[in-house]
């Protein structure tokens, strides 16, 4: 794999990575959100493996595959299982209408590029130039979580943020040291497990997980 090809592949993955995040904001059905999330997981694995290959470091490849399995397989499976328990498929009414969300997405991406300038200036390599994509995905994930009522969309928002951060970690540093990476993915898995259990418990106590009912705890 010549350097030019891997750089292009890397940019492709990052491009798709950002595109899926924007797509999540665009679509209304929860099932399509989950598929977009799976695609994004794959893209993240692609980035990880490409970087690992560049550094010819077997250990990093192992991590990438592990993360790939987690983000592209286990998590979407869990989300689908939770989603099937909930009869209604469509997202009823997001707080901010779709066009406004997309405008906001554009603004947030611009902010991400401006904020990531020190990261970009760190190293001349292609991967460093792609770090703003990660931060953009973090901001989009945050925006999604802040403007959607469905419990599932909350989880997807959080997962988007984690994907974005993992992307930044890989692109800026070629992978965070092993032990921290393991810790992160362990936490991620546990976070999803907890969210999954809680959503199921929410079903028992609250019925359909329309978050608006969660108003009892206020001042």
């Amino acid at each position, binding site marked *: 794999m010549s350097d030019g090809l891997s750089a292009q592949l890397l940019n492709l993955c990052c491009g798709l990575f950002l595109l899926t995040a924007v797509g999540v904001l665009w679509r209304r059905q929860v099932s399509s959100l989950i598929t977009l999330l799976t695609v994004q997981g794959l893209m993240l694995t692609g980035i990880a493996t490409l970087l690992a290959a560049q550094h010819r470091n077997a250990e990093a490849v192992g991590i990438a595959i592990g993360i790939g399995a987690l983000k592209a397989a286990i998590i979407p499976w869990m989300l689908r299982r939770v989603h099937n328990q909930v009869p209604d498929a469509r997202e009823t009414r997001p*707080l901010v209408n779709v066009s406004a969300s997309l405008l906001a997405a554009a603004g*947030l991406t611009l*902010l*991400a590029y*401006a*904020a990531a*300038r*020190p990261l970009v200036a760190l190293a001349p390599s292609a991967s460093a130039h792609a770090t703003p994509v990660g931060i953009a995905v973090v*901001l989009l994930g*945050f*925006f999604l*979580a*802040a*403007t959607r*009522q469905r419990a599932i969309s*909350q989880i997807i928002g959080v997962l988007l943020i984690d994907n974005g951060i993992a992307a930044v970690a890989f692109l800026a540093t070629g992978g965070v040291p092993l032990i921290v990476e393991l810790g992160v993915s362990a936490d991620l898995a546990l976070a999803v497990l907890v969210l999954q259990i809680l959503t199921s418990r929410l079903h028992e106590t609250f019925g359909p997980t329309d*978050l*608006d009912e*969660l*108003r*009892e*705890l*206020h*001042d």
Partner: protein
Amino acid sequence: MTDPTATALVTALVSAASGATAGLSLPASWRARVVGTLLFLSGVAGLLAGLAALSGHDWQTDLPDLLPLAGIKLAVDGLSGWFLLLIGAVTATVGVYTIGYAGRDGHGPGSRTAMFTLPLFTASMLLVPAAASVPTFLLCWELMAVTSLLLVMTEHRRHEQVRPASVWYAAMTQAGFVTVLIGLVWLASIAGLDFTAIRTTTPGVSPAVKGGVFLLCLFGFASKAGAVPLHPWLPRAHAEAPSHVSALMSAAMVKLGVYGLLRVGFDLLGGGTGWWWLTVAALGALSALYGIVQAVVATDLKRLLAFSTSENIGLVLLGVGFAGMFASSGQPAVAALALAAALLHTINHAGFKTLLFLGAGSVVNATGTRDLDQLGGLSKRMAATTALFAAGALAAAALPPGNGFVSEWLLLQSLLHPGGHTGTVLALGAPVAVAIIALTAGVGVATYVKAVGTGFLARPRSSAAAGAHESPLSMIAAMAMAALACAALAIVPALSVPAITQVAASLRLQAPPMGTNLVSLHLTGITATFWPLWLTVGLVVAVGALAVAGRTVGKARRRAIAWDCGDGPLTARMEYTATSYAEPLQRIFDDTLAPERDLDVTHEEESAYHIDAIRYRQRIPDRIENRLYRPLIVAIARLGEAARRLAPGVMHRYLAYMLTALIVVLVAGVIR
């Protein structure tokens, strides 16, 4: 530790501490007696410490490892000696009183918490004048606040008014503490922590900073002293606290506000400029007038005494204010005289206010009510309390043989001193001040005649008053001690001149121009002398002679029913009550008092012309409180309601907060 001040002060603190442990551990029946005696010992020791300090034994010590990150530094000089003496005397009297007052049942004043906190309260009051660094002063100040708050809450089970009173008290005391803290810490950041360091460096500090520090400290100390715009806690806390605690607060704690003002204004900031002391004098004048006007129309005995404390503090602040103005306009002699009048009035007020509150306590103890309209006829049932309360009232009304008159005379002399006034402010200020003192004295006389007349004389107006019985011996003994102190201060005031000279020296002021001849009160600068001793002797001899002559020469006295216009026996309802007594004065001061009257007439069902019942209710509100504090409280409550929308329980609102915070941080990172 051979220094007499140190030994006396340490004994005072140790006996207070042992009193506190005794209060916590002993069974109810023994608790009052032991704590009372230990309190008495602590008071006497404090008194001796004050005396030693006033006779020149300055003392200081440094305990660097107490109070983490700050350390404690104590020092006693002339000024703190004077206030130690005052607090010690009041504590001793209240100690004896507590033996009888706290009762055996172990509830209310006799409860474990009350008996534990009382000695701690007096100990912290003894420590405040002895503090010699900013952290120590603030620590002792707050200790005093905490212990007094707990004591105000003692009778929360019996009266439901205790709760709002303690909330008012806690909030206003803390507000005062915060202003003093900010002022003193601001000064300390420039001039160092210890008072000695501050004294040396303040000349170099810019007048603007000194002015700011003084105003902040003035707010805090004036609110502790109960000066009028900052007084709403005083009538509430003193009315709801048990009487021996109100006596301690009114006679001793309130004076520490004046101590703070003297220590910061004269000693630490070196006297400062004229406008400082003009504000103090203005505060004093307002407190004196508004306090006494509210006192004259008060029907609750302890509320009347509380507002009278505001009035007397107003007079003290007038004296201090004019002393400062004279000092800063270059007349040290008259300044020292005004300061002497203020200091003498603090101890005179401590004397008669303790006596009055202890008297009120014995009345409340005997009848269970504080309402003057329900009392009456106590002179026969509680002869000793009536006589002692009347003596206190005589002193409080500033009538000649009493000690109140002596310090008021001195204050008037310092203001009347002609020819000394150079600036126009003083030329105009002095006569206005004299007018205010005079009006306050006049209305004050009316207040105390009402308190004694309607409260104690003629027939009882309620079954509670009718069933009154004399208080236990220890309460009478305590009141007698206070009365003796007042008498001594009244007859031989010149005793205090050497002490006042020592205090003036420690405030770097000139000695007051007062002769030290014991018999008279002679002012050297201006030819004004006054012989309290001969005046009292003359009065006693004249009254005695006339009474004896009348009884021996003339025929025996006969008892007959009073003139009742011929139509049947006079009932107690026909007597003048406190409300009716003060009705003319209330009508004269109508616009400042703005009493709330509501009258509802209920008619018969059948016809509107036949009236079933008429109900008339009148309440005299505290207008300054309604005008200044109510809007503030309403605003804060509205702010609280509005703020509840901050946490509506909706997840999106919370995430939106976090998103905005993240965006702000990123933008901050971007723009250099």
